[in-house]
Structure formats: structure tokens, C-alpha cells
């Protein structure tokens, strides 16, 4: 059971590292409008995630 959690954590870390790397690589090619919309979507994503977790009773 504990090993599963370790593997889940490892997978989540790798995923975040991969997405972070790609974001850093391609954010410099985004236009100014693209950067602004991406920022708004990122804020919205974290905001809605918070509301969802709140609705679950966290």
C-alpha cells in the first residue's frame, strides 16, 4: 500500500516536472495576448480547483 503511494507521488512529480519544463520552453514563444490568456486560465484553473476541493468538504 505504501509503495503504491510512493509510486503515485513519483508519477505526479514527473508529470509536474514535464509540464513545467514544456511551459518554460514554450512560454518564450507565446505572443503577449497568449501569455495574458494563459495567465488568466492558470488563475482560473487553480481557483476552480480550490472551489471543487471546497465542495468536497476540504
Amino acid at each position, binding site marked *: 500500500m505504501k509503495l503504491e503511494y510512493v509510486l503515485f507521488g513519483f508519477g505526479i512529480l514527473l508529470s509536474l516536472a514535464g509540464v513545467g519544463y*514544456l*511551459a518554460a520552453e*514554450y*512560454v*518564450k*514563444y*507565446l*505572443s503577449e495576448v*497568449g501569455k495574458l*490568456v*494563459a495567465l488568466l*486560465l*492558470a488563475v*482560473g*484553473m487553480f481557483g*476552480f*480547483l480550490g*472551489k*471543487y476541493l471546497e*465542495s468536497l468538504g476540504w
Partner: protein
Amino acid sequence: MPRNLFLYLDLACFVGLLAIFVVDGYLGIYDTVYIIAGEREEKIEPDSWLRQEKFGARGVGVSRDEKAFFRYEVDNRRFSRYMADIEVSVWHSQQKVRDLVSQPMSIAGFDKGELEWVIDTAELLPGDIPPEQSYEFTIIIKRGEIERNIIVYINPRAYPSKLVPVPSR
């Protein structure tokens, strides 16, 4: 209100974020210049051209009487074929010194095209420039409507060669 509304909105934002990175950040035409001068290789990456609009053209140093080897790479990250006329020329004080390359380029979707040329500073320098004086000129790369500028600095000789008199026998 649906039970998982916030989860769906969250996923929609994530998908939108990915779509912006793919469409606005990855797809398009990207050009890179590789310059080998002496033992150094310099790479002018696509994002450098964006900075060029704000801070001016990128510069590269070449020693006097040395050759510089240029490789211009165009990356077509689109689904359709990309075609453009490439013109490369050398300019100094708003006047064209020499044409280097003029040819069409055709690149298939998600493929790369390359073009190479060499500049010889010994040929480009005017004869009346003393060795201890630096000189510069601009390489202008025209790809269709798009123009890329690279300033080439010709460094002066640190120690100008002096003729040593031959001792009399």
C-alpha cells in the same frame, strides 16, 4: 448546479492552457542562425528576433582576416508546406556591399530547411581600414516579408604587426 461543475471548469481551463501553448507557442515558423567564427559557435535562437525589435540587432564578433560560417535553419512547425524567397546581403552605412544568397526555400510540414554561406572579412573590409581599427557591417536576411539583422563586428588586431628591420651583417 451540477455536482462536478467546478471540476469541469477546472479541466476546461487546463485544456485551454494546453491549447494556447500548442497553437500559440509551438506551431509556426521559427528560424535559427548558427555562426561559427574561429573556434566559437554562436546560436541566435528564434526568441532573439523578438528581442531584436526592442533592443536592436544581435552582434557577433569576428577576427580580422577570418572567415565566418553561417547556417540559417528554418523550422516549419505547420501542417502545410512553407515557401519563401531567402535573400542574404551585407550592408554598411545603409548601403549594400554584397549579395550573398538569393534563392527560394520550400519546406514540407513539420520539416526543416537549411541554407549556408560564408563571409570572408578580408574580402569585405575596405583597403583603407588600418589593422588597429574595428569595423562593422550588417548581415540582412530577408525571408519573404520578414527581415533579420545580424551585426558583424570585425575586431581590430590587438598588436598591429610591425616590420622589424633586418639587422645589417
